[in-house]
């Protein structure tokens, strides 16, 4: 393939290295050495990647967690413009400001649909295994270039703005990443078997509605623990869905699978463990309560979970 996902790891690594360098030079940041070290370590994960010995990478992850966990990643000063200045340029540029922002989703969609099978000299143009990421990467680069041209800014200014946003996200940037690691570790340690064992040995599945409820609610609860519906699905489908719902009550496997996955998604809405969807947006939107998005989603997720139980109960034998 011509455009590999690795290239974008290097781009992101370089970006993080710049963030570290700017943090180091920022005398207004009270913990500038710690902050710089944190971003530099993260940069190395992207720049060196698979060449790092696994134990070293593990130590780096622990070091980053300790720096972030004990408040070592702090805000600096970013030379932001005043609200009037921003309003003036908004009026001057108008709808043109939307062009670079919309270029990102547009390029991603075009890249991952139209350019999916495009080959050049016998090689795939875009890495077929990471087609969305590579398209998104291209879209982001086009967007920066267009934004620079439109606003007469330099790429260096774009880097300063990246640092402003990344610093505001702070540790929320690495939380989803570390949770993904925990998820893999849970799988390695046999968490799925343990949960399925507990669920099936203590609950009576002889009543059809109980079995359906255990399957759907278990899917949501397990997703709340793991933060990921994909991790919950094999456990609950293997533990309850297939042996009990399909095996005993002759449920249609397609209905069992589809509604089971949607029950898992109800769990995703209710957990801080799904950090990418729930904690990161709270940081991105500068909300003082990191759980504000989860709290807002619970009143949608709970009724929907009940709806799923009812739908599965009534539809599974159709």
């Amino acid at each position, binding site marked *: 393939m011509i455009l590999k*996902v690795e290239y974008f*790891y290097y*781009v*992101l690594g370089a970006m993080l290295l710049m963030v570290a360098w700017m943090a180091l030079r920022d005398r207004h940041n009270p913990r500038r050495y710690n902050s710089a070290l944190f971003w530099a370590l993260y940069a190395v*994960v992207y720049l060196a990647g698979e060449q790092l010995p*696994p*134990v070293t*990478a*593990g130590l780096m*992850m622990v070091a980053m*967690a*300790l720096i*972030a*966990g004990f408040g070592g990643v702090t805000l600096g000063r970013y030379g932001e413009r005043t*609200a009037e200045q921003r309003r003036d340029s908004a*009026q001057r540029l108008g709808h043109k400001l939307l062009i670079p*922002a919309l270029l990102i989703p547009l390029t991603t969609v075009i890249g991952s*649909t139209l350019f999916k099978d495009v080959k050049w000299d016998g090689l795939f143009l875009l890495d077929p295994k990471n087609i969305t990421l590579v398209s998104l990467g291209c*879209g*982001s680069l086009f967007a920066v270039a267009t934004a620079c041209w439109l606003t007469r*800014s330099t790429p260096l200014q774009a*880097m300063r*703005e990246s640092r402003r*946003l990344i610093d505001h996200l702070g*540790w929320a*940037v690495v*939380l*989803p*990443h*570390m949770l993904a690691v925990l998820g*893999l570790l849970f799988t*390695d*340690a*046999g*968490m799925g078997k343990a949960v399925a*064992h507990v669920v099936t*040995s203590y609950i009576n599945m002889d009543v059809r509605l109980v079995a359906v409820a255990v399957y759907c609610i278990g899917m949501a609860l397990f997703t709340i*623990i793991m933060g990921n519906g994909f991790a919950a*699905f094999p456990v609950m489908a*293997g533990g309850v869905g297939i042996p009990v719902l399909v095996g005993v009550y002759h449920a*249609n496997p*397609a*209905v069992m*699978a*589809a*509604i089971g*996955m*949607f029950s898992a998604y109800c769990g995703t*809405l209710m957990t801080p463990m799904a950090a990418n969807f729930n904690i990161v*947006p709270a940081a991105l*939107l500068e*909300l003082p309560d990191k759980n*504000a998005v989860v709290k*807002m*989603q619970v*009143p*949608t997720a709970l009724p929907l979970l009940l*709806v*799923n139980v009812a*739908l599965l109960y009534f539809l599974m034998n159709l």
Partner: protein
Amino acid sequence: MNQTVVNLWPLLGVAVIIAGFVLRAHPVLVVIAACFVTGFAAAMPVEQLLATLGAAFVKTRNLPMILLLPIAAIGLLERHGLKEHAQASIARIKSATTGRLLIAYLAIRELAAAFGLTSIGGHPNMVRPLIAPMAEGAAEVRYPNVTMEMRYRIRAMAAATDNVGLFFGEDIFVAFGAIVLMQTILRGEGLEVDPLHMALWGIPTAICAFIIHSWRLYRLDRYLARSAA
């Protein structure tokens, strides 16, 4: 079910997570503590545990990219007034309320995701620069005395709307990862299922998700009217 070989000790890792959230400890520290407890519960030596963590950390580094790559362009546009422009544009539409705007976004997000266009939307490149400022702008026009508390609620709801639209839309698209995963797992258990059927059986839930969340968005308008009075 084979009941003799199941090791229940890794469940201690879950206990750590729950205890961490109850005690309001720093989330990153909670996760690291849970990693070590789970590792030791599964009888891994320290060196092997660090290697497992390190290998997983490198393997999953594609995850933050969706968040971080668009940030340079969005930051630059914000410096030049993207949020202010989004607010001014929505203020010109007289019938726009926060709730109606978010219902429209929910419909677009869910439909786009259902057709596989999951990258239309997202928190860094749609919600922060456009959707949340527009939802706030719509409230500002109606209620000049919008408090910070109301703004936070609007922003959190904008983020929630993006999630609901994405989750319950994407599962009714045949080529989506979840459908492939479900098919693979069912096949492993000896059940052959047509992906199209799984996608179709997702539609009732997708419609209910839209109705329930739209109702909540309609209630958001009522909340704003009450708070501003």
